[in-house]
């Protein structure tokens, strides 16, 4: 239960910090926003499944972008702030603290999704309808969980190298391309497919589209298989994340480097 208290406390602090200065989410979500705007122009005045692609895709990219930056920098913020030693000195495991931050980042990515939705509907007059709202919500929640878990892996990997900044920025574009957010991964060269499919949210967005559009053909595995893969990926990420964080904590205590990076 202590772990849950840590998780919730971290999530809450992260949310409060965001609401204290909301404009700082902008750099994380600018790219998805602009990309969606371009996409909407590409799609022209379409309604139905293509418009759904644009809006859902943009929202998904927003959640990706914010998760990447939010969790990649989860502990960097503490470092700049001078709070990292205090956080490390608590009896809470780092992984739970980062999990809370990561979940908060993924969740806040929804803010971007909403913004895109508003712009699309008001600015472009796009019309959208969701065929099965409950299944959509389920897929969305599971995708957010998968994103949060992946965020933990990002954070720990970045902490183990000195180039967190480069990696975070460097991963942003490839993820937008490979995640199947805005266009199906079938269009990409076949050798990239395993990479795309290793990302839980790729399955997640596919599931969301199944739920939103009754005519959707998608990757061909069907809604429930997609959800299963999302769940599976979440478990794998959590396992990797936990293991990596044990390494991070031991390294920090041995090498005293966490404060420096």
């Amino acid at each position, binding site marked *: 239960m202590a772990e849950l208290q*840590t998780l919730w406390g971290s999530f809450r602090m992260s949310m409060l910090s965001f609401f204290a200065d909301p404009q700082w989410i902008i750099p994380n979500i600018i790219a998805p926003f602009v990309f969606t705007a371009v996409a909407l122009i590409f799609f022209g005045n379409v309604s139905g499944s293509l418009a759904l692609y644009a809006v859902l895709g943009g929202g998904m990219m927003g959640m990706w972008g914010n998760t990447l930056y939010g969790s990649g920098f989860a502990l960097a913020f503490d470092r700049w*702030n*001078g*709070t990292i030693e*205090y956080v490390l000195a608590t009896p809470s495991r780092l992984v739970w603290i980062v999990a809370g931050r990561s979940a908060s980042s993924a969740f806040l990515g929804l803010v971007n999704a909403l913004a895109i939705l508003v712009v699309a509907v008001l600015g472009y007059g796009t019309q959208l309808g969701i065929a099965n709202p409950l299944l959509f919500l389920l897929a969305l929640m599971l995708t957010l969980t998968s994103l949060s878990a992946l965020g933990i892996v990002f954070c720990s990997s970045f902490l183990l190298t000195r180039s967190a900044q480069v990696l975070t920025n460097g991963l942003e574009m490839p993820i937008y391309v490979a995640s199947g957010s805005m266009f199906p991964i079938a269009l990409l060269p076949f050798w990239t497919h395993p990479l795309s499919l290793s990302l839980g949210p790729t399955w997640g967005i596919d599931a969301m589209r199944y739920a939103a559009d009754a005519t959707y053909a998608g990757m061909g595995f069907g809604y429930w298989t997609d959800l299963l893969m999302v769940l599976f990926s979440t478990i794998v990420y959590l396992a990797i994340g936990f293991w990596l964080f044990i390494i991070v904590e031991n390294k920090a*205590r*041995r090498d*005293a480097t966490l404060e420096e990076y």
Partner: protein
Amino acid sequence: MPEKPEKAIVLSDLRRVYHVSKGVFRKKREAVEAVKGISFNVDFGELFGLLGPNGAGKTTTIKMLTTLLTPTSGTAKVLGFDIVKNVMEIRRRIGIIFGGERGLYYRVSGRENLRYFADLYGVSLSKREKRISDLLDMVGLADRADDRVESYSRGMKQRLHIAKGLINDPELMFMDEPTIGLDPEAARETRAMIKGLVEKGKTILLTTHYMFEADELCQRIAVISNGKIVALDSPSALKHFVKDITVIEVEAFGVAEKDLAILRGQPEVTNVSADLEGERQTIRIQTPRGSEFIPTVTQLLSRARIMDVRTKEPTLEDAYLKLVA
């Protein structure tokens, strides 16, 4: 139920080596031994001071004892728990205050800062709010508790630090330079609070490079220099160490470093410390000779303008300078 250990803190030949990379193109790894094998004990209910100049190894020692760093060799037990093997047990039971401004989340309120750390320390939800209120009252921040920390003065931030350090009701506290950077009034308040905590039965290990602070607060002081303990005793015993020394204090104008070098070269001079900044320079000369040495001093400093000469009783600072030299 484990037995209560005899001592609050026990260090046994604790050593810590850092590996530093030097150079831009050809990185060379150098080993820097920050702590070179130190041992001491701290009793329950004691206010123990670790005194030393910057870079002496104080912060490294505290980081090892608070489980933020693993020692390269040697062992230590905090509240009976090993600092390498029982990390979580220690963390649950100790409070930490590192001096300085940083260490708080500025954009949220003081209360939220305390809530966050309460959660990280696993303070039970039933106790949490009351404890936070009590702590805020104790440090005098109750009326500003819900304002953003960035609006707090330096002294208020320090008080919040203290509240934060007490959030898990620890029986043992570590404080690393707690009054650094504070104005005299805030520093005084902080010291009063520290004394109050000891009176309530807490054990405190405090590091400082302020001599008078160690003298005022601590029951025992370990003087650390260059990674080693050079003395460990009560303040009065340490002052006794320099009882045969007289201090000649000179107030002057126009003294240069080479004058000090000449003074230091004198056989009867054990130590010279000086503050040459500003218009009024203060030079303290330690000598066993006493006031009969004054004419020699004035002659050696004849190039400068001497405004006042006094003899003084040696203080802890003088003992410290002698030990650390």
